[in-house]
């Protein structure tokens, strides 16, 4: 009896798709209302992000970037969901979700400084509604419920969106965040980018639940599973989730996707837990290939356009790295000074001690 109940829930979570692997529209009724320019802009962002990811990996290997979690394979998931947001919406990212916060307004050089562990990377410019990437898996999910309640109390027509991975969906905070947002009818969107592996642990080992999307049921919020390699599907479900959120109905979006690279650049070796066959299978579903095909069929994209983006991305990255290099090095006294608005007795003494050391 119990099993049957679970099956009844699971049968409601079929994967939503608009563009198939060949770039063909398989769900015409669901096509989002996007202009040709918007479709091109989305492609622009995906290509740009792919180039930036490749550069970031190589800069990390050269020792010119620090902590970095590769994003290739997840561009549709990240950029599609972000493109459905408004400027004043809030983003609470996980550590891999740097593209969303950069497209939301964090200057690229600051993203690089964040990667290097320079505090200026976290000094978010005025009017950019993001928090720095979260390291603790799930902490941002409960915070998103708080930001969403804050937006609601301020009568803003804005939402809070937060991102985690398939492993994040096993955390208690994942449930608590969804449950709080549901209970307060707060405008929140919870995105789980199910990229199949939490570092090395496959998603099948995370839970007996057949989908992550169905976990929304327990919290009484909307849940949807979407092809995370399909940018139109990602955009469409997020757009709907945003409308629902503003009506006090949060949504859990499970984006089924894949990361081509390692978990982070700090020594992870995916060959220890993934097969080449699996990598190849997912690469056939690549978000850029299928969307490029879709746009080329509509005469909205060509090699020339693609090359323009590649060149622009490379130039921007070069400039951003230079700007990061030119940022003054941080001193221990700088870090003491940003601890509190008014320094307490102990830190005031330590500040003087470090300033003295630094003056020598």
């Amino acid at each position: 009896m119990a099993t049957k109940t679970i099956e009844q829930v699971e049968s409601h979570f079929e994967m939503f798709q608009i563009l198939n692997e060949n770039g063909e529209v398989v769900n015409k009724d669901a096509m989002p209302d996007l202009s040709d320019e918007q479709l091109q802009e989305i492609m622009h962002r995906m290509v740009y992000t792919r180039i930036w990811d490749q550069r970031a990996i190589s800069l990390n290997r050269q020792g010119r970037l620090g902590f970095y979690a590769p994003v290739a394979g997840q561009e549709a998931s990240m950029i599609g969901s972000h493109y459905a947001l408004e400027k004043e919406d809030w983003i609470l990212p996980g550590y891999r979700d740097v593209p969303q916060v950069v497209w939301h307004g964090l200057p690229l050089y600051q993203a690089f400084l964040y990667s290097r562990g320079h505090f200026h990377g976290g000094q978010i410019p005025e009017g950019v509604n993001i928090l720095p990437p979260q390291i603790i898996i799930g902490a941002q999910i409960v915070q998103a419920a708080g930001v969403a309640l804050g937006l609601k109390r301020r009568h803003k027509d804005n939402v809070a969106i937060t991102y985690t991975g398939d492993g994040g969906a096993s955390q208690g905070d994942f449930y608590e965040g969804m449950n709080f947002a549901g209970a307060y009818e707060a405008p929140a969107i919870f995105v789980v980018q199910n990229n199949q592996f939490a570092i090395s642990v496959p998603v099948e080992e995370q839970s007996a639940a057949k989908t992550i999307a169905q976990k929304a049921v327990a919290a009484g919020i909307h849940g949807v599973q979407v092809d995370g390699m399909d940018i139109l599907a990602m955009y469409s479900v997020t757009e709907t989730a945003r409308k629902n959120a503003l009506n006090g109905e949060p949504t859990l979006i499970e984006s089924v996707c894949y990361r081509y690279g390692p978990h982070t650049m700090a020594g992870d070796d995916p060959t220890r837990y993934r097969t080449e066959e699996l990598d190849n299978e997912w690469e056939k579903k690549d978000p850029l290939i299928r969307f490029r095909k879709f746009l080329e069929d509509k005469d909205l994209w060509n090699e020339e356009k693609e090359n323009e983006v590649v060149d622009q991305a490379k130039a921007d990255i070069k400039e951003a790295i230079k700007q990061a290099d030119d940022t003054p090095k941080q001193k221990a006294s700088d870090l003491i000074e940003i601890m509190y608005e008014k320094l307490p007795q102990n830190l005031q003494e330590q500040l003087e001690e470090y300033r003295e050391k630094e003056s020598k």
Partner: protein
Amino acid sequence: MAQMTMIQAITDAMRTELKNDENVLVYGEDVGQNGGVFRATEGLQDEFGEERVFDTPLAESGIGGLTLGLAVTGFRPVMEIQFFGFVFETMDEVVGQIARLRYRTGGKYGAPVTIRTPYGGGVKTPELHADSLEGIIAQSPGISVVIPSTPYDAKGLLISAIRSNDPVFYLEHMKLYRSFREEVPEEEYTVEIGKADVKREGKDVTLIAYGAMVHTCLKAADQLAEEGYEAEVIDLRTVSPIDMDTIVESVKKTNRAVMVQEAQRQAGVGSNVMADLNERAILHLEAPVLRVAAPDTVFPFAAAEDVWLPNENDVIEKAKAVLNF
């Protein structure tokens, strides 16, 4: 002026700040209509409405996350953890997130957050309701830890905590909630965070304490006085950061000190005070600084509290040991 218990003073402080600043929100488990399990928020929901004083689902990490989110959207949250022992459920949000927010945003976002929670032994609670866990929070950079011992300080410190643009962990000793009344001004006033208070002046030995142990020390000082010793009693009031200036000034006068805490020897804040005295005042000391603390066991089950908690006889014994060193 009105005669108030500590809990009345706490309620009064929240009422004052709810009136003063529309960004102040008060919430937690049972905080709304029920007024909190100790009635600290009694009547506040009726007075300020459900949007400002409200219940939360029963999940402490969720409450902590809610707080950080409300803080970055411009609110001034006053969250309650129903009992201090439940802080483990939300340690990440409190010390991993809220306390680090200003630092990790390079100073961009402060967290004007007050976290209130009852703690302290002597009231025969179930497990994990009474533990003195202040040392765990006190060793976390980015958050102050405040512990009032009187109704007057309770109101003034809580108003300071709510007005602070950095997070303050505000601990309420359960045994002191209704143990005595004192004159508390009805108007608003603040007591500075980070400042200790000399509760009793004396020239022979300094007793340093916080929370309920302040009253234990005052009783001990009365008895010591009968035997001809004048003890000075310092109430830390803020256990992080510690007001070493006041302590050192006292020790320069008395040349002897005993650190008194309800927490276990290995816990609490006594070790910090003693280490700092070593660095700052050793040449003024005529005897080693001794301490009164609970043994390094788990906080006891209710029936064993009386034999476990430090009492005035323990304080007198240690005071005499340093006096006669």
